[in-house]
């Protein structure tokens, strides 16, 4: 009874239409991308096809870093490609790594969403002859050839202390507005800052470290509380992008604007208006464009066999100069980059 009731749907028309559609889409896309998609660069010479794989696409930070990579690759005449997942989930990068291995690209520059989940895929790609360089966010050291580190904890701590010392005349009370009380990165930096202050800036007194939990409103309220508790306060360091933006927002609308210095780690897009209206003189972060640029040159050096990723290897990185590989295959970009009113217009991330 039921079987006689079931409708059958002859789908000749739809079949043809769908097939045609898919075929058109496929050929159309591959025709449009044939030029840069393939990795085979011909037999002689090294395969300088380098693919950048950020945590996700449509992220201004990675747009900036990949633009730096593209600039470098154009300089040395390689082929630049950028692929990536639409969301930064732990395993979403795997299929792109596999694709790069299938295409036989020369090098892959990755910012890892997860230090472990993409490890096997990266090692399979390396077995297939792809040089793997991580930047911004590392994997386990045994899954990649090199890691381009944007900054060391010491560098980050020192640059912030130097900035605040310069802005308050190397004397007076300061406070720190951090993320959460158990944030590993921030705590390591704060400890180093305290050491640096004690050793090199005896006239600066760190009165309190408060925690805004990387929440905009909490950070805003904590800033207000700090300024009321310590009327003599001359400066605030906020080593977190959420904190510095919230503190700047509070300062810019308060009587303390221009009187209490604020610095820390921030992104140009968040901080632009506060730098332009004079609330903030300068703040630090690394320059993602340089990071991508260096990663591209490091990959080139690996592909051409100039370096193998051993400690002590050195290579040329175009406009950035010579770089040396440190322990565990880590290359350090350098001191954090300082953004101020003069250069903030050059950045968009």
């Amino acid at each position, binding site marked *: 009874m039921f079987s006689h009731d079931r409708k059958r749907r002859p789908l000749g028309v739809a079949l043809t239409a*769908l097939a045609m559609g898919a075929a058109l889409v*496929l050929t159309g896309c*591959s025709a449009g991308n044939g030029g840069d998609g393939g990795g085979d660069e011909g037999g002689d010479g090294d395969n300088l096809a380098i693919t950048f794989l950020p945590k996700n696409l449509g992220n201004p930070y990675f747009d900036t870093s990949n633009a730096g990579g593209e600039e470098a690759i154009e300089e040395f005449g390689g082929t630049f490609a950028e692929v990536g997942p639409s969301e930064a989930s732990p395993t979403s990068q795997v299929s792109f790594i596999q694709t790069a291995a299938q295409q036989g690209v020369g090098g892959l520059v990755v910012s890892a969403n997860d230090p472990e*989940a993409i490890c096997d895929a990266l090692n399979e790609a390396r077995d297939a002859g792809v040089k793997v360089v991580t930047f911004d966010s590392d994997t386990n050291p045994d899954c990649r050839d090199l890691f381009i580190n944007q900054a060391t904890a010491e560098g980050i701590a020192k640059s912030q202390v130097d900035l605040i010392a310069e802005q308050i005349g190397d004397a007076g009370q300061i406070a720190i507005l951090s993320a959460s009380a158990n944030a590993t990165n921030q705590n390591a930096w704060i400890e180093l800052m305290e050491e640096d202050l004690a050793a090199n800036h005896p006239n600066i007194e760190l009165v309190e470290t408060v925690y805004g939990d990387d929440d905009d409103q909490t950070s805003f309220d904590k800033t207000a509380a700090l300024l009321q508790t310590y009327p003599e306060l001359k400066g605030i360091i906020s080593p977190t992008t959420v904190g510095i933006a919230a503190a700047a927002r509070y300062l810019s609308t308060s009587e303390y604007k221009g009187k209490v210095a604020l610095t820390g780690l921030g992104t140009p897009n968040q901080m632009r208006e506060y730098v332009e209206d004079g609330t903030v003189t300068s703040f630090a972060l690394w320059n993602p464009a340089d990071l991508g640029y260096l990663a591209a040159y490091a990959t080139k050096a690996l592909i051409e066999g100039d370096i193998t990723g051993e400690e002590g290897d050195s290579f040329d990185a175009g406009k950035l100069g010579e770089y040396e590989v440190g322990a565990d295959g880590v290359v350090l970009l350098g001191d954090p980059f300082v953004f101020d009113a003069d250069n903030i217009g050059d950045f968009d991330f």
Partner: protein
Amino acid sequence: MTATASQTRAVRTYKAHSQPLWRRLLLTRETSVIALLVIVIAVALAVVPNFDSPLTVTYLLRDVAPILLIALPMTLIIITEEIDLSVASIVGLTSVMTGILTEAGWPFAAAGVTAILVGMVAGAINGFLITVVGLPSLAVTIGTLALFRGIAVGLLGTKAVTEFPEYWTDLAKDNIPGTPIPGIMVPFIVLAIAFGVLLHFTPFGRSLYAIGLNKEAAAFSGVDVGRTKFLLFLMSGTVSGFAGVYFTLLYSNARGDNATGMELSVIAAVLLGGVSIFGGRGALIGVIAGVLLIGTLGSALRLAGVTSDIINVITGVLLVLSVVSASFLAWLRRKRISAIGKKKGRSATSVDAP
């Protein structure tokens, strides 16, 4: 019922099938999906560089394996006009269980089996709420989607367990010796045959179509609708648990947010494979072709350098087209039948219904 049926058969004047066998076999939605898959593969082989390497087969099958596995019970569930949105959360939960138990020093086999049992319990919770309490599966599994994911993330927090015995991770990743086909295809094919036989060649399977077409009629025909649905959700949870263990091994990674959003990939593939969201229609072979079609298309487009957003757009358009074409053809068919009916009505007096 039986008497009526035999009487009908004795006097009926129409053929058993309105169309010849070849049309019934060839002009189905399943065949069209399979044909489309073949065409996509052929076109990709011809125009996409590097698509013809054996690595493609390995990577493709390995990555779609969890979706293939979960699509099997999902097909049965959607045929009964129900849905299970919690499958990806069960994958996440069982992945976390595998990780926690392995970290606690359990032998991996015991941890894996326990995780699959957790999946089974999760499926039983769904089944209980849907059949015994009588809530709609859409509402129940939206709830358990959040619930199971919440437990998974709560158990492990933001950390991940990444140390698993090499023997097992290799087992999950290795190919069948001498072929580019990953070893996970062996359990998949066993399960696919089991589910195929269950759906298409057993009374239980026939009852699923009956439930999907008309729940009341099925109940009056002697189908225990509640028990049937409970079993389906139990199967779904169990297979999702198995997929969760596999997923953990494949990426050597147990995290609470593993496989987030995978339920939509599974359901999309099932619908593309010709299963009606209104129940009562569909075949397993079409679903398998549907999963492979989405996977192959993605793989080929990635190789051709197409970005992930465009791939999502293409997959989405394909899915919408396939659903629209089904409705459109059904409408065409109704028009044609009614036109034939009118013609017959004009040319001859109506034939008495038996």
